[in-house]
């Protein structure tokens, strides 16, 4: 990989990268607008859209009432007649109120209309736990959305993806959901000053390794990378794959990796039963069975509504130590 020279790199955060992507999209295409609760005057509940109201005005940075179903549906309606809305649902927790619109309208209009109507809509939302906000505010339901034909589902875990996925999503003629993990907004680092749209649909190997494939996405990627470092010290060379796109899943990259490592652990912040990790494991069991030298491991959230106290929340969520243990377990025999 040839990198641009150092002087063209800038320091940014996940939050700023998304803001820059929105900013750019708004400048480039006047059909783009941002709509959601508190995106304007408040500046976005995670401060992603801070400053955009001043730049683009209240028509295009549109504060909505607390009416998740109606404003998501309105985004769909605006998309089918030519706009390119970015709808922000504060968090995945509240998206349950808009699920009917997403599943029964956004995902089906193209099909039900015999191909006449496409829905070029982007829905962004924060997901995940880790901030001690308890049972109703800590869901990781992106796996649910990944079940629905007609939707595309993205989970940017890096600054490049935070900067680049939105633009690609806006150019996609289909409804695209972007899940931003709440713990990533403050993540900082350097990216190319001219970073822009990135490919979607492909998983990325974030750390090459020979012994075991650790599969993660979004917020758990970084915990998994940490786990890989710990494993390296213990002589296990883990490959870390970032799914990036949750629907469609890039099975090919996963199969290729386990074709080399013969061992797999899937990490997912969703509750274990029926999480996205199940689909990943099922695909490996179907299509990669003969590559595997050991059972697949999964590290997921414990099946309990997320508790408030820090120590219990930490125990409920996937942590590097549990990932290390799972990798060791699948390597053991």
């Amino acid at each position: 990989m040839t990198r641009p020279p150092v002087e063209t790199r800038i320091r940014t955060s996940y939050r700023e990268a998304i803001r820059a992507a929105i900013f750019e999209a708004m400048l480039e295409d006047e059909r783009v607008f941002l709509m959601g609760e508190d995106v304007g005057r408040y500046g976005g509940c995670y401060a992603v859209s801070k400053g955009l109201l001043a730049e683009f005005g209240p028509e295009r940075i549109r504060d909505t009432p607390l009416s998740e179903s109606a404003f998501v549906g309105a985004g769909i309606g605006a998309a089918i007649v030519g706009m390119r809305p970015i709808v922000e649902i504060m968090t995945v927790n509240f998206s349950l109120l808009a699920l009917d619109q997403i599943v029964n309208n956004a995902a089906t209009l193209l099909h039900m209309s015999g191909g006449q109507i496409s829905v070029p809509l982007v829905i962004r939302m924060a997901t995940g736990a880790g901030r001690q906000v308890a049972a109703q505010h800590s869901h990781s339901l992106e796996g649910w959305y990944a079940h629905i034909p007609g939707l595309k589902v993205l989970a940017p875990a890096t600054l490049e993806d935070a900067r680049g996925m939105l633009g690609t999503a806006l150019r996609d003629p289909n409804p695209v959901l972007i899940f931003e993990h709440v713990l990533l907004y403050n993540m900082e680092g350097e990216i190319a000053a001219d970073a822009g749209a990135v490919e979607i649909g492909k998983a990325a190997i974030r750390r090459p390794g020979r012994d075991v494939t650790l599969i993660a996405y979004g917020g758990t990627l970084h915990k998994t990378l940490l786990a890989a470092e710990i494993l390296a010290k213990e002589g296990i060379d883990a490959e870390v794959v970032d799914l990036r796109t949750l629907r469609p899943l890039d099975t090919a990259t996963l199969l290729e990796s386990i074709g080399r490592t013969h061992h797999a652990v899937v990490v997912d912040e969703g509750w274990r039963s029926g999480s996205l990790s199940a689909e990943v494991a099922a695909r490996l069991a179907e299509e990669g069975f003969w590559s595997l030298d050991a059972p697949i491991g999964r590290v997921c959230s414990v099946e309990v509504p997320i508790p408030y106290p820090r120590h219990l929340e930490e125990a409920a969520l996937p942590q590097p130590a549990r990932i290390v243990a799972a990798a060791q377990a699948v390597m053991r025999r």
Partner: protein
Amino acid sequence: MTGSADLKPHLARSHVMDLMRQMLRIRRFEEKCIELYATERIRGFLHVYIGEEAVAVGALPTLTPDDAVVATYREHGQALIRGVPMNAIMAEMYGKQEGCSGGRGGSMHIFDVAHRFYGGNAIVGGGLPLAVGMALADKMCNRRRVTACFFGDGAVAEGEFHESLNLAAVWKLPILFVCENNLYAMGTALELTESETDLHLKAQSYRISSVAVDGMDVVAVEAAARRATAAIRAGEGPQFLECRTYRFRAHSAFDPELYRSKTEVEEWKKRGPIERFGAWAEANAILHPTDFAALEQEVAAEIEAAVAFAESGNWEPVETLTRGVYAEVAP
């Protein structure tokens, strides 16, 4: 005719003829559908519009080709009046490739973007947010268009009704809400499900100007719809039209109609929109018995042709099953 006084001047013979023709097109089309359902040419859920024809026929012609329509699963009438070719609708009912939705949707999902007909939504209340978004786009783009959104009395209880009306009102959107109040949602009477059964008053609680009209009177509906669309075009924001009507047939083919009396149905049938308008037109010597016969013949021919078209249509090959899940090119 109620409310027709101030409109008498416009009731030229050609207009009366046209209203009659359109109502008959719906009535006979729906009757044919019931027949075709019995012989299993049409499957799935079938909801017919018999008894409610005056609503679509009165309201829709006040729109221009640029305007848009969002409807429910009981939408054949709206589609026909909006100009979606009967052939394409009938082929859709059969599930044939030549159907307006390529056969994928069936009775509940009639789409025709060329006629700006945006479905066919089978989730009660599900079309309202969509219509709000379409109107929002028009407003943001300074397009002088109206989006007309049809829904039943049952939809009024859904949260989406409330959220959508509020959004439309806060944002002063160019949208016409048309509530087809036929007094029942499936088998549940409005009075059992709404604390305020005067539905148009609900719109006013969002500061949306609203009116209730006799939905069995095509002229009254037309007059009210004309005023409402004119107000929208004049920039006065959303308007709400409650059309009080009645469904003469069962909710769908599965409905044993245990929840209402035959007498009630018969009483309403006496006020049938076609029956009354026809009688009035004849009594006033605007239409003559020969006109009715000619119209019936014309409509019968159109329906016969539509059935033939649907019959001779093609089944989509199974090989293309996964088509239409994702779009390839940006619209």
